């Protein structure tokens, strides 16, 4: 599991053409931006934007958030969704009670509130290591749905204890339509990906990986382990808080205490494991898998007209079996996630092309 995929960059012969590689890097980022902000908005239908692309991107972001904590810093968390909930409810209350806050400020503040909460639930990490640490974040996962259900204040005393998305707008532009919501999600995600890269390649990121792989040695080297661990919770929860706002406001449109439940935390965990720990882009692969598989299975059944041959309920249960089996299969066959699989495939292609 601890194969370091985005590791401390080695100096060496690989650096033969620095300017070429940098140009390529810039070119790729540009290409990515063109696809994200040019191709997708013009080609994708409402259904695709609303039901497939937006959730995939947001869940990919959730994967990045968890990856920062678990993949890079090695701290187990089973409560990612709880911090998303904190972000979403914070944003709702900020918009409601502090009129006139622009959307970017709301997102930032929501993220910061989630970060503070995350640090609090991360305190046990200073004494406990390994899988047992899961208990703390799992506790958060049960605590926050309870909090938001028990105190209707958080949902402005709504009858159904739900918070609904406020009018999303920025600089006068209405972001309510699927396209508008997609652009909001894409922009925020692009910015956060940039931030993630900065963090991961910085000293903070390197020290996280050192703590993850060899904690005792790290502290001997002078790394302030406690501080770095708490910072990991802070950064990860910051990301999760903003992700929670996007999920609730830009995708679902409403949220309640149980929107960000244990199933969601498990989904995010699957995304990290399937996409690849300690990667950034792998998370989008994982997210695509998690979002698309149930829908694909549904369409396969529709297309094959199996539904008319037997009990629909049985088929949906079969889909659940298949989903679980695929999870196990990927865990067995591809320990480093789909991104490693792709990397190997590309490597093979390169070799074939004789480069």
């Amino acid at each position, binding site marked *: 599991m601890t194969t370091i995929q985005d590791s401390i960059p080695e100096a060496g012969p690989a650096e033969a053409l620095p300017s070429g590689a940098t140009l390529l890097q810039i070119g790729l980022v540009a290409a990515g931006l063109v696809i994200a902000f040019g191709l997708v908005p013009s080609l994708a239908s409402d259904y695709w934007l609303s039901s497939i692309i937006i959730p995939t991107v947001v869940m990919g972001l959730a994967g990045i958030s968890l990856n920062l904590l678990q993949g890079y810093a090695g701290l187990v968390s089973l409560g990612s969704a709880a911090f998303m909930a904190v972000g979403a409810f914070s944003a709702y209350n900020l918009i409601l009670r502090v009129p006139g806050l622009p959307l970017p400020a709301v997102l930032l503040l929501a993220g910061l509130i989630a970060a503070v909460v995350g640090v609090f639930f991360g305190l046990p990490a200073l004494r406990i290591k390994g899988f047992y640490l899961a208990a703390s974040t799992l506790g958060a996962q049960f605590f926050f749905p309870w909090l938001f259900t028990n105190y209707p204040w958080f949902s402005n005393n709504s009858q159904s204890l739900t918070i609904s998305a406020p009018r999303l707008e920025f600089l006068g532009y209405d972001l309510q339509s699927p396209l508008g919501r997609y652009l909001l999600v894409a922009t925020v995600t692009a910015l956060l990906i940039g931030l993630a890269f900065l963090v991961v390649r910085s000293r903070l990121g390197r020290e996280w990986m050192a703590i993850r792989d060899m904690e005792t040695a790290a502290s001997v080297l002078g790394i302030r382990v406690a501080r770095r661990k708490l910072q990991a919770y802070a950064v990860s929860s910051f990301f999760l808080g903003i992700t929670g706002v996007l999920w609730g406001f830009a995708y679902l449109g409403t949220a309640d205490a149980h929107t960000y439940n244990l199933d969601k935390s498990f989904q995010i965990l699957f995304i990290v494991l399937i996409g690849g720990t300690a990667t950034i882009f792998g998370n989008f692969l994982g997210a695509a898998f998690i979002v698309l598989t149930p829908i694909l299975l549904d369409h396969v059944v529709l297309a094959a007209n199996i539904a008319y041959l037997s009990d629909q309920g049985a088929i*949906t249960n079969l889909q659940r079996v298949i989903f679980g089996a695929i999870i196990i299969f990927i865990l067995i066959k591809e320990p480093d996630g789909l991104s490693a699989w*792709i990397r190997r495939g590309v490597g093979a292609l390169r070799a074939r092309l004789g480069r």
Partner: protein
Amino acid sequence: MSILSRTIALAAGAVIAATSLAVPVEAQEGAGQQLYPLFTYRTGPYAPSFIPFGAGNLDYLRYVNEVEGGVNGVKILIQECETAYTIERGIECYERYKGGFNGALTAAIYPHSSGLDVALTDKARLDRIPIVSPGGGQNIATDGRVFPYQFPLIFDYWSEAQIIIDYIAEQVGGHDKLKGVKIATLYHDSGYGRDTIEPLAILSKKYGFEDIQIPVPHPGEQQQAQWQQIRRAGADWVFLRGWGVMTPVAIKTAARVGFPADRIIGDIWSGSEDDARPAGAAAKGYLAVSVFPPGTDYGILRKLKENILDTGKSDLKDNSKFGTVYYNYGVIEAITFVEALRTGQKKFGNKPLNNEEGQWAFENLDIDEQRIAELGAEGLISPLKTTIDNHKGETIAAKIIQWNGETWDTRTDWIKADTSLFADVIKAKAAAYAVEKGIEPRQAASN
């Protein structure tokens, strides 16, 4: 850094491939048909309630299609979409079918989940798709001026609270005898369960009974503490607002602490066979509210039995579920859909209705006594008349049923709720919602 490039490239390739695979061949085979997107939950913890309910839906619609030749000749195309009772899948199903399917038009969507009904409110308003939730919608959506596209037909929990108080009053000898009676409400700790806190507080002030509210955290498989509390408080009656496994556990735990079953009144979602039977002997005498009465002695059910059940066309795998509470609920719900189609067709012509025509139809429903008799649904459904100011229906009534160990016996006739009691409070809430969301209430009915 070239790792990035390859990753992106291949990921993009994979997504594009998946995309082209997933796009269905859009044939126009559905043209000329009315789409009924059937939101199912055949997996997950609530699946047992869906099986008979979905069958009721499907059997009635099949009956209309095959025996009656469709609604004035317009066939109904049914497309199932599994939600697993989660909001996310529900939203995907909504997005998938809101625009119709293969040429068949969408007149309305029945989300089959109160949570999904709430989640779809803003989207439906934008997309102008009627969202219909008989027996489970949002109470404030009764005000059609603020909620043009929400239809919480037939029933709501505030009226239910009123009805059980009326029933208890009858049992103790009159409303004036309610003073000092202790009524404990054991509720599922969620938006659904909390919905009755406010109306019971209002009623308690009005009649003078002691209102004790006790929450049960989801899913409610341990209720020892709560029932001890009930016993300690000396409650005379318990109003059980349960859902799922909470109900049979409540009934059994009540027996363990010695609270009599015939003093427990279950809410409409705690009143099915599957809620009482798992509790075994402890459930004998247990009461429940019923808006969708069980039983097979209704004209329409006889017709369904003859044409659908006995000919093997039923969606039921287990015929004993025919005529159960949820099965009949499914039939009633399907009746509302078909009658809405008829209503709309009278105005717009005998063709499939689109979403705006559907909105008009649901806002102008008038299923009166005569029509109910024609349908063979006397005793199964109360008259249902909707207007722009009342998206629920003017008559709100329920019966009280009692479990005898095997089936439900009907204990009362229709108990009507006094709709004027809470009307002002509800209207005020709707107005507050409009202000919060910046919605301009409609002045006149459109279409």
